[in-house]
């Protein structure tokens, strides 16, 4: 039976493991915070956490996690008080400029030297959110195009059929027919204009113009 292979971080020849983990901690493309759960204080942060927050490690050390990387109030910590499992949950981190950065957050408990700590990892999902917004924008414009073109066109189609019938039966005089044809010609011109405007807006990606309620509806899971 072959023995279990040892990975790089399993080797402990001369204390180099600590260096390996330090390097991983500093180079990994996930922002990491180490939190003391008793005091709810940050005790370590990696460089990616610095770029995510715009704060230096020094500025973060000793800082409370509540109101910074966690919206919970004192006594309502989801991990230590409510015993919830935080695994890839969408949250927001408030950066140095006061901006809310969307992240995927995971919290794991870890024991270092007999003391329990929380290892919190954060993945910046700003670009994913922007793509989601863009998709919502396109869906909104597509939906609006259908509502402002397809349904009125269906109504107009029925109107045209009605005009034909009424013209044949003599119910409508020439002015009635002229007026309705002129009205629908203008309606068609307006529909074409609406579609052009919607297309132009969709291409510019003016997602800010989508009513927030509609965006919320489209993004509802």
């Amino acid at each position: 039976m072959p023995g279990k292979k040892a990975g790089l971080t399993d080797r402990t020849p001369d204390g180099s493991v600590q260096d390996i983990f330090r390097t991983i901690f500093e180079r990994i493309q996930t922002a990491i915070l180490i939190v003391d759960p008793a005091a709810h204080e940050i005790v370590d942060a990696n460089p990616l956490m610095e770029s995510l927050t715009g704060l230096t490690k020094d500025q973060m050390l000793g800082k409370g996690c509540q109101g910074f990387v966690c919206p919970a109030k004192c006594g309502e910590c989801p991990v230590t008080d409510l015993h919830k499992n935080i695994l890839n949950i969408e949250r927001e981190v408030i950066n140095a400029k006061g901006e809310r950065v969307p992240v995927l957050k995971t919290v794991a408990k870890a024991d270092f030297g007999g003391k329990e700590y929380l290892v919190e990892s954060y993945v910046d999902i700003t670009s994913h959110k922007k793509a989601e917004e863009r998709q919502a924008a396109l869906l909104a414009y597509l939906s609006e195009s259908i509502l402002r073109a397809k349904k009125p066109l269906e109504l107009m189609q029925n109107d045209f059929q009605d005009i034909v019938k009424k013209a044949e039966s003599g119910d409508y005089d020439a002015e009635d027919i002229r007026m309705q044809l002129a009205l629908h010609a203008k309606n068609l011109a307006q529909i074409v204009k609406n579609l052009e405007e919607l297309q132009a807006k969709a291409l510019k990606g003016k997602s800010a113009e989508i009513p927030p309620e509609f965006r919320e509806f489209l993004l509802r899971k």
Partner: protein
Amino acid sequence: MLCLLVAQPEQIQDMNLMVMKKILASGCTPLIVTVNKPYKVLTKIYAKEGIGPESYFVIDAVTQYSGGVCPPSPRVKYVNNPSNLTDLGIAITELLKQMPEGKKCILFDSVSMLLIHIPSATASKFLHFVVNKLQLSDVSGIFLSVEKGLDPVVMSQMSAFVDHVMDYEQAQKQTCLL
């Protein structure tokens, strides 16, 4: 009472006629807001069903828009363009005041055609304004729309403004819509 009635495109005109008959049968005076058919055409359609022009009032937002003649009448107000919501709002207020005392009901034909002229979000705000006005004046309102012709937000807002949302078949079964 405020109602949103939805129907297939080919049923909209029949629904308009059915609603008009029910409004008149309930002893209510209808005020038709049309962004769909010119007044002259509307009178002919109603006349064929035995509904005379003395029994209703009209706000016509399409005759002038289509280049038609707008003969003055105390029972009709013309708005130059369906997208002119300011004038449409003023016309509704003025004509409601001019109408004789008693039960009144607005018949809006149709929300779907209004969407040619204004975006859904603007239509929603305008309809909210109209609904508020009707509630304050104790006037009933019936809004016609093509089925699935409103965006989900406008639909949910309209559903919140009105007392009932019904399709054509459900509306037909009601002895009184008001």
